């Protein structure tokens, strides 16, 4: 095979994802940024550069970088033991805990913000218990905690999926030769796990760096991140020049991060043996990991419990009144649909967003993990790799406004298209799908595919035999993720969804945005329903098995 032909094949596979990315990401973002560079019809680069030299820009950038970095490190440190306990050990209730830890991911920021602030705020239990010595409301510590709360699930799932498929035998061999658990981890497990950890960490960092609601809600107005600043500049001040400057800055930073992550992810020999060991029962040496997981569960549960309790307390007594209101009622008449109706809309959208994300992300993952035969091919792959991560690193506001100013004329008059909502959500979920699948697919020895091919299997058949068995579980993990992201997505959805047909997070936002105990309580109850739905769906998806995998 000649290189050009292989390259062509590569591009063909990448065609659909590239087209989607081009239309729904590159075009809107460049369109929006271009507006900022043009003043009165003239290109004005100096004006944009001037924004970058403002003291405030530096402050905002610095806060974004350090808070995201700290939150990422914490999420990894907390997530690793949990990934081990939840994916390598076998114990009752493991599946439920796994699903529960995903719950924060789908809760609308506005609700989590409220729950967090009730916990940490002046009248909350933390202040009361510590006698006022610990008041985290409106502090940077509070913001970082919120970011970790949201993102630790990314590490657990991303790393867990890879860890599950690791061959346990090298580690066992090392242990038999006298290596301590710490030594086994350092010399055997960590090198094999590193690509997955770096992958997850880079996703977490991007999520943190573009977190919008949580920074403002928990940090009050003392802290601004690049994202909150772009929002303010675009929607309130209509200062497109400054917004464009920050968007470009954001892009540059993200690209730099991705290059760095690419370096760190690379391992000399990515070939993994397929897992042959079932998860084992906890041993004494696993106690620290289990304790760490329990601790994490408590941390994640605290705000969620606040929500649940709040949704069940009516006038100081336990009651299901707020849950009864979910079906609609006379007093809640100012809702376009009852909460149950919004839930159905959410679920329908989530199914569409999930298959879109899996389709796009799956194609990209396959393209990225085929072994490169030439330097130019490798280069094309690494560019593609970074390109598909970009949607995570760019301001939702820039993208949302860009949609409207660029997708406005035939043949791309897509502003009214009902596809926009699931597709926007799929764009957010896609990088996660890619990052979950790539480490695993990269670990499949290419010789297995070659062997299948030489035995007469076509490309699809070879993939089904060599790749699918290994990638099945990560694929499920990724679909659960995509589903959860779609269910919880608020930013893009609130922009694009029809007001008469809102998703559940949008409806919750409306409920919590008005006075009266009933709306507030119903908002909490609706959040609990959203969280429970997610947990149940994720749990169910993970139960699916490929029959041929029965004999591990």
């Amino acid at each position, binding site marked *: 095979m000649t290189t050009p032909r292989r390259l062509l094949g590569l591009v063909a596979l990448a*065609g659909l994802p590239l087209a989607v990315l081009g239309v729904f990401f590159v075009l809107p973002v460049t369109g929006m940024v271009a507006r900022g560079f043009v003043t009165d019809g003239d290109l004005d680069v100096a004006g944009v550069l001037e924004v970058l030299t403002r003291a405030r820009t530096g402050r905002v950038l610095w806060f974004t970088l350090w808070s995201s970095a700290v939150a990422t490190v914490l999420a990894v440190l907390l997530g690793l033991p949990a990934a081990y306990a939840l994916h390598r050990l076998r114990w009752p209730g493991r599946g439920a805990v796994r699903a529960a830890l995903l719950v924060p991911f789908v809760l609308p920021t506005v609700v989590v913000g409220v729950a967090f602030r009730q916990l940490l705020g*002046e*009248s909350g239990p933390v202040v009361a218990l510590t006698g006022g010595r610990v008041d985290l409301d409106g502090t940077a510590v509070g913001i970082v905690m919120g970011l970790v709360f949201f993102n630790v699930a990314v590490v657990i799932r991303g790393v867990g999926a890879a860890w599950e498929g690791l061959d346990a035998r090298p580690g066992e061999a090392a242990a038999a030769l006298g290596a301590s658990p710490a030594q086994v981890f350092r010399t055997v497990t960590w090198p094999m796990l590193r690509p997955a950890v770096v992958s997850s960490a880079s996703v977490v960092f991007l999520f943190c760096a573009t977190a919008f609601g949580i920074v403002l809600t928990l940090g009050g107005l003392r802290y601004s991140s690049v994202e909150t600043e772009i929002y303010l500049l675009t929607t309130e001040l209509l200062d497109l020049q400054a917004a464009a400057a920050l968007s470009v800055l954001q892009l540059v930073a993200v690209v730099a991060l991705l290059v760095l992550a690419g370096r760190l992810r690379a391992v000399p020999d990515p070939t993994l043996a397929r897992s042959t060991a079932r998860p084992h029962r906890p041993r004494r040496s696993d106690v620290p990991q289990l304790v760490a997981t329990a601790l994490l569960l408590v941390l994640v549960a605290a705000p969620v419990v606040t929500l649940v309790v709040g949704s069940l307390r009516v006038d100081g007594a336990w009651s299901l009144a707020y849950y009864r209101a979910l079906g609609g009622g006379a007093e809640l008449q100012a809702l376009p649909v009852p909460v149950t109706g919004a839930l159905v809309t959410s679920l329908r*959208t989530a199914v569409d967003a999930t298959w879109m994300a899996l389709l796009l992300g799956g194609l990209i993952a396959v393209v990225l993990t085929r072994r490169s035969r030439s330097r130019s091919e490798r280069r094309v792959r690494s560019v593609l790799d970074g390109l598909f991560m970009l949607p995570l690193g760019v301001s939702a506001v820039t993208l949302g*406004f860009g949609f409207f100013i660029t997708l406005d004329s035939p043949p791309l008059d897509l502003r009214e298209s009902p*596809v926009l909502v699931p597709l926007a959500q799929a764009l957010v979920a896609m990088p996660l799908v890619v990052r979950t699948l790539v480490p695993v697919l990269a670990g499949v020895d290419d010789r297995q595919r070659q062997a299948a091919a030489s035995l007469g299997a076509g490309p699809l058949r070879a993939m089904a035999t060599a790749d699918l068995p290994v990638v099945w579980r990560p694929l499920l993990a990724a679909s659960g993720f995509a589903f959860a992201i779609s269910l919880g997505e608020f930013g893009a959805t609130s922009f694009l969804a029809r007001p008469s047909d809102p998703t559940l997070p949008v409806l919750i936002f409306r409920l919590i945005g008005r006075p009266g105990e009933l709306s507030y309580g119903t908002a909490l109850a609706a959040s609990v329903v959203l969280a429970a739905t997610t947990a149940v769906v994720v749990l169910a998806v993970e139960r699916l098995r490929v029959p041929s995998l029965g004999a591990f």
Partner: protein
Amino acid sequence: MRRMRMHIHPTRTAVVAVLALAVSGCSLVGTGDDESASDPAEGGGEAGGTVVLVTHDSFFLPEKLVKGFERESGYDLEQRAGGDAGALTSQLVLNTDSPIGDVAFGVDNTFGSRALEADVFEPVDIDAPAGVEENALPGDDEGALVAVDTGNVCVNVDTTWFAERDLEAPETLDDLTDPAYEGLFVTPGATTSSPGFAFLLTTIAAYGDEWQGYWEDLLDNDTKVVKGWEDAYQVDFTQGGGKGDRPVVTSYDSSPAFTVDGEGGTTTRALLDTCYEQVEYAGVLRGADNPEGARAVVEWLVSPEVQEALPSSMYVYPAVEGTELPAEWADLTERPSDPWSVDPDEIDANRDEWLQEWNEPVSR
């Protein structure tokens, strides 16, 4: 800009073909768009097709009213949300070349002049009922914006909290800086919330050039500034859902109608000397595909049916005089007779500067 678009065209076509295949072919659940995708253009009736109403994201009117409008006018009404009032205005301004709908609702008197300056709206000639004219945006000489509803952003107090402590509740802006009320006031931020910005305008209207000094005093008196209305009211305010510990909050003059005490009274009260009047407008977008339909929507929005539904649907007061209010509203709320205001042009010219000056002490 134009040239760039030209270049993209051929690829766009291919891309759309691929997308159409991918999307229409295999959507598992449909798109939730069954209604409006199938029947608009062809089945729209004599008056002519679909009319697109762009609104802010808290717009809502009961289905029954919408259906009634569609039946009587012959138009199909399609709604689209464009974020909060600020985001909506920005979107309208950015899309003047190809408007995102036919008619817009939700641009308020703090963003109105920005929209007028960008020529977003077409002057509309309707028989405006009494009240609409009175609430017109100062400077809107052509009558492009039609007032639909009004509401005041006022400081609210928890009357039970003060009664339990035998304290006089604060009444004026000055009182909020009185050490007797230290640590009791919470307000959403001006940069992140529309009532927050309205309260900033109140202080600018009341104190003129001295407003920054007033804010210094407010902050010295341990005023808490949070992100949005929901943070202030639902978390920190004593009568909010989260039962916070601050009995004074920035909210609306209609809020007391929702804090009922179960005995026909309310547990909160709006301070009428601290109010800023917000008016929300509707208008026909310049370059609309369906200007006639747009005009019909504007007329419908100031019709008695819609005006009467406004309090229970959107928590605002009808702009049209003589519209009947719900009983609780009539009984439990009071409206300021002379709220504060700032000239729209002045807001437009100074918004950036004010917000930055405001942000300085708050973020310290």
